[in-house]
């Protein structure tokens, strides 16, 4: 029986077992009431938080409805408020960031588990995970001051040398170099530690004897990784991907700094754009009345999406754990 399967016996069940059929709580001392108060406070704050956001966004849903999701313009302070630019911006930046993070991250995680000498393994893993502790404003600054000039000189002209590139990327040469592509790259680097940390764990718990079985059948190390380890860890890796995606869609400050804060719904990746989170952050200071409600509505949307992504991620990682428990 693995640790996960042990029933989570709380204090009350324990006493019930000890005393008889009915749980008998013998002493209600001051800490009992303190804990109860803390729990009630927490519940109240959570409900209040979610409730007020939904409540404040209600006028926008009532008056604009789905034009918030599909409308193109954003006119302060009275509307109309169209969220299409923010939604597409979020999707574009997050998905490109995810591709970057998954490619680099999977390679990193595999290397940490299989190729880096045992002595350095913990050091490298810790360093990668420490990247997650860097405040996002620092990533934003770095993106703006270091990556943006580099991309303007090197990457953007190269991208535009491809056929049909203008259609995908648009012309380079925006001021400050802010663009959706820059935001994607910075986001990709930011969500890398999350993806590496989880996928490394998922890969590391693939049972040793499965790997030995494949080697005993004459598999090379690489065949073992590709045909046994990665397929076995697949569901957990998908969970890591969803969590990284949740990080990307929710990231605010860095995107606000490097995307350019322009509410244009377009697919030209070298043009400035914005994301839902970044737009809320940049607009909130000057907003009033109807616009506050519209921003709250965007917030609700973002919150729902992120909660779903986090739940999916958790479900996948748990499912992986159950699969391995059975193996």
């Amino acid at each position, binding site marked *: 029986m693995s640790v996960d399967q042990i029933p989570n016996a709380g204090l009350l069940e324990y006493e019930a077992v000890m005393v008889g059929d009915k749980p008998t709580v013998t002493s209600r001392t001051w800490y009992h009431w303190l804990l109860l108060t803390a729990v009630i406070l927490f519940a109240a704050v959570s409900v209040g938080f979610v409730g007020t956001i939904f409540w404040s966004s209600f006028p926008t849903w009532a008056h604009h409805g789905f034009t918030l999701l599909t409308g193109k313009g954003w006119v302060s302070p009275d509307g109309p408020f169209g969220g299409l630019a923010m939604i597409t911006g979020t999707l574009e930046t997050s998905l490109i960031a995810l591709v970057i993070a998954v490619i680099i991250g999977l390679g990193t995680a595999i290397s940490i588990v299989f190729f880096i000498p045992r002595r350095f393994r913990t050091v490298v893993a810790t360093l990668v995970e420490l990247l997650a502790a860097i405040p996002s404003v620092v990533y934003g600054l770095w993106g703006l001051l270091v990556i943006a000039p580099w991309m303007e000189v090197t990457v953007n002209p190269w991208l535009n040398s491809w056929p049909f590139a203008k259609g995908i990327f648009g012309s380079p040469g925006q001021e400050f170099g802010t663009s959706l592509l820059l935001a994607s790259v910075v986001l990709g680097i930011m969500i890398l530690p999350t993806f590496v940390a989880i996928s490394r764990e998922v890969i590391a718990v693939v049972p040793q*004897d499965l790997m030995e079985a494949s080697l005993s059948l004459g598999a*090379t190390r690489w065949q073992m990784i590709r045909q046994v380890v990665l397929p076995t860890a697949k569901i957990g890796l998908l969970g890591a991907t969803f969590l990284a995606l949740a990080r990307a869609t929710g990231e605010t400050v860095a995107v606000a700094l490097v995307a350019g804060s322009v509410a244009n719904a377009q697919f030209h990746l070298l043009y400035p754009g914005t994301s839902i989170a970044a737009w809320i952050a940049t607009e909130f200071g000057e907003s009033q009345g109807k616009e506050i409600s519209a921003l709250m509505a965007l917030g609700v949307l973002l919150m729902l999406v992120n909660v779903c992504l986090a739940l999916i991620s958790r479900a996948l990682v748990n499912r992986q754990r159950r699969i391995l428990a059975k193996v």
Partner: protein
Amino acid sequence: MEQEIEIMTEIKSETTQVVTPAVRGAIAMQLNNVAVAFHGRVAVRDCTFDVAKNRVTSLIGPSGSGKTTLLRALNRLHDLTPGAKVSGQISLEGTDIYRGNLTVTELRTRVGMVFQRPNPFPTMSIYDNVVSGLRFNGIKKKALLDESAEASLRSAALWDSVSSRLKVAASNLSGGEQQRLCIARALALDPEVLLMDEPTSALDPIATLHIEELMKTLKSRVTVVIVTHNMQQAARISDDCAFLLMGEDRAGELIEFDTTEKIFNNPDDSRTLDYTLGRFG
């Protein structure tokens, strides 16, 4: 205990001819002064014996005597363990497996392994499990894979119960069936030697019986080396037997190697007798 020993003797006495190591015929693997150490700490040493072709050789001894460690040296599984060092000489058909002209992947296709816990690949179907070794070795032709899958599953006495559901996930099989699948998977590569590390310790008595029956039929085509905790099992199925014991410095060493008949009835070393009589272990 008394009764068990009687049964054991009975089973062994069915063997009509006493075969001494000198006349056992061809040699599949030769071990010469083999020792395995981890980070300089010796786990097993002084192992010198020949594994005879088309016979079942069992490695017996109490926990910590280095049986599994020795077995894993025979297909170089210790290569993966940092700090592990195998010394002495192990040869397969005369070729030194550590220093000779034999790649580690080639060695492992010729010396297969079945593990303690049934460990079919959980993401693969029954069919894909059986042919995985062939695929690792670059064989893609479907006719060839199909043919080998059927032959291997038949050899492992599993074909009749799975032939209609080859595409089903291997995890749907029972423990005993999974272990037979692992045997089929190893047999698909047509190895010369099959290493088995306590292959029945995770199985119920009926499944154990099936695997033991299987081993008896398999030895006509493959040489078997089996680690077992279960002395009756060693007596029932093996032809030759190596007895290992943990020495004073906690390193396992070979105490005696001979035919199973002799080890269980008339061993040279008194410690072997004590162990087979169940006086310790």
